[in-house]
């Protein structure tokens, strides 16, 4: 591997460039019309234009990106997160062009597009899944039987759905037929598949995920968990590790489940196994995120490992240099995602960044971003502006460090969620560690009606 093309935009491109440079690799950026002057384009060794600003015409356009691979002579592709990062067709096309894909194999990506594949795998391995069907359902009678057996509310979910789309609750028996019909239709339109399955809705869940790495020889390590229960609009706002509700025994159990799932899948490279935890402390396997995740710095801070560099090394065919017993989790890390949005209504706030005051960075304070004065925050892409990550000896220390950093952090020209971050860090629910995925809405309501 000599030259890696990063098929993405913004801060994650800068992150991959940093890791690639440490391995002596050349880097290639791609860009749309809107990103012609973006920092990720200037920081890479080379950059290629891949189309107009709308994602389907550039960052989601497989043919255009493959063309940039060819023109640049890159011998590897790192997909980052979002966009085409988990697209099996893209991975397959990259591999078939003789280029190294930095991620799990196209076959694995294809299998895990199906949620019912993951549910069946969980059942087979004895890893708990939420009560419901493992297979997809194709008749109303099965849903009626489950409704009577499990009780409301149920969730009807699309087998190939994602991003919270196509999830519909069933609260009464007479909703079954209309919800089933509408789900099938949404699935066909949005994801090309009408298949769906049914599960019991977990009340006040907490989102816990286990970061793993696997090399091409079948060696795996689990790097502890991250908790991502502070969410808005199905998107994560705060992630932390370790989770305040996961005991040492829980961690061992979750890690061994995660590794057994990935091993059974024949999974390679970085991946995250997602679980929900219910109010009684039961865990349920949900899905596998087959990419480097936005929140990977949390794990990097508490393990001292460079996950992106390890991804590149695994893709080069190197064996994992770390064994499970060598994984050492130290202190607590918290990440806050800062979005260009109204902090309390979440209405997007595109525009131009005019002025920035950065927080003081140190060993315990990291900022991953592509911010600079004059940055045009485009309406075409994700609103995330930056990720502020702090690490301290304990959770309380991390919260204080986050508050101090947020008070010093100023971005002018667009609205940002910095004030929301402070509200969360100062809330009893976060300080106590009692946050669930439903808590944020109530917190905002209390703050805005005060």
């Amino acid at each position, binding site marked *: 591997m000599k030259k890696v093309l990063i098929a993405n935009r913004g801060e994650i491109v800068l992150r991959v460039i940093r890791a690639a440079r440490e391995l002596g690799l050349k880097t290639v950026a791609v860009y749309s019309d809107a990103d012609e002057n973006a920092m990720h384009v200037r920081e890479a060794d080379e950059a290629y234009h891949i189309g107009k*600003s*709308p994602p*389907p*015409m550039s960052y989601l356009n497989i043919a255009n990106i493959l063309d940039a691979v060819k023109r640049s002579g890159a011998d590897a592709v790192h997909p980052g997160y979002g966009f085409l990062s988990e697209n099996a067709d893209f991975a397959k096309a990259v591999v078939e062009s003789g280029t190294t894909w930095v991620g799990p194999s196209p076959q694995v990506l294809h299998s895990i597009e199906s949620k019912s594949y993951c549910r069946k795998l969980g059942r087979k391995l004895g890893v708990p899944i939420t009560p419901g069907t493992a297979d997809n359902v194709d008749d109303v009678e099965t849903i009626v039987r489950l409704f009577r057996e499990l009780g409301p509310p149920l969730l009807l979910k699309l087998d190939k759905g994602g991003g919270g789309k196509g999830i519909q609750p069933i609260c009464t028996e007479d909703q079954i037929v209309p919800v089933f019909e509408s789900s099938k239709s949404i699935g066909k339109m949005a994801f090309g598949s009408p298949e769906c399955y049914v599960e019991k809705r977990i009340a006040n869940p907490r989102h816990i995920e286990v970061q793993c790495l696997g090399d091409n020889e079948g060696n795996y390590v689990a790097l502890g968990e991250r908790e991502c229960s502070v969410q808005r*609009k199905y998107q994560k706002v705060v992630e932390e590790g370790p989770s305040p509700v996961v005991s040492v025994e829980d961690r061992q159990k979750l890690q061994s489940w995660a590794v057994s799932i990935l091993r059974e899948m024949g999974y390679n490279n970085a991946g995250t196994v997602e679980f929900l935890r219910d109010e009684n402390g039961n865990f349920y396997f949900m899905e596998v995120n087959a990419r480097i995740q936005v929140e990977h710095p949390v794990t990097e801070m508490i393990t001292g490992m460079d996950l992106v560099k390890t991804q590149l090394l695994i893709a080069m065919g190197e064996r994992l240099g770390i064994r499970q017993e060598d994984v050492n989790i130290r202190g607590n890390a918290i990440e806050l995602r800062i979005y*260009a*949005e109204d902090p309390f209504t*979440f*209405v*997007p706030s*595109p525009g131009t960044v005019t002025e920035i005051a950065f927080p003081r960075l140190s060993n315990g304070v990291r900022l991953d971003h592509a911010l600079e004065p004059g940055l045009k925050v*485009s*309406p*075409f*892409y*994700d*609103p995330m502006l930056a990720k502020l990550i702090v690490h301290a000896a304990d959770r309380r220390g991390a919260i204080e460090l986050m508050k101090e950093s947020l008070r010093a952090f100023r971005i002018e020209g667009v609205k940002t969620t910095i004030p929301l971050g402070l509200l969360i860090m100062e809330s009893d629910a976060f300080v106590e560690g009692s946050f669930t995925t439903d808590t944020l809405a109530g917190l905002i309501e209390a703050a805005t009606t005060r």
Partner: protein
Amino acid sequence: MDHKVTATMPGLVARVVVNVGEKVAEGQEVAVINCMKTEISVKADKPGAVKEILVKEWDEMQVGDPMVVLEI
């Protein structure tokens, strides 16, 4: 008289939800704009009948760009 319903946020046209000839009430959704992955509803600010649709999926919108012409 013609009246243009315009984009209230910048972004990409996600879809137009009315057809030419259709009657729309004031406040009825006529199109959806995707701004930073959030769907923003564009509503008729006057009642009328749809005379012309000026945009298609993935068109780039700035605030104030006309999207749908109503006969009012």
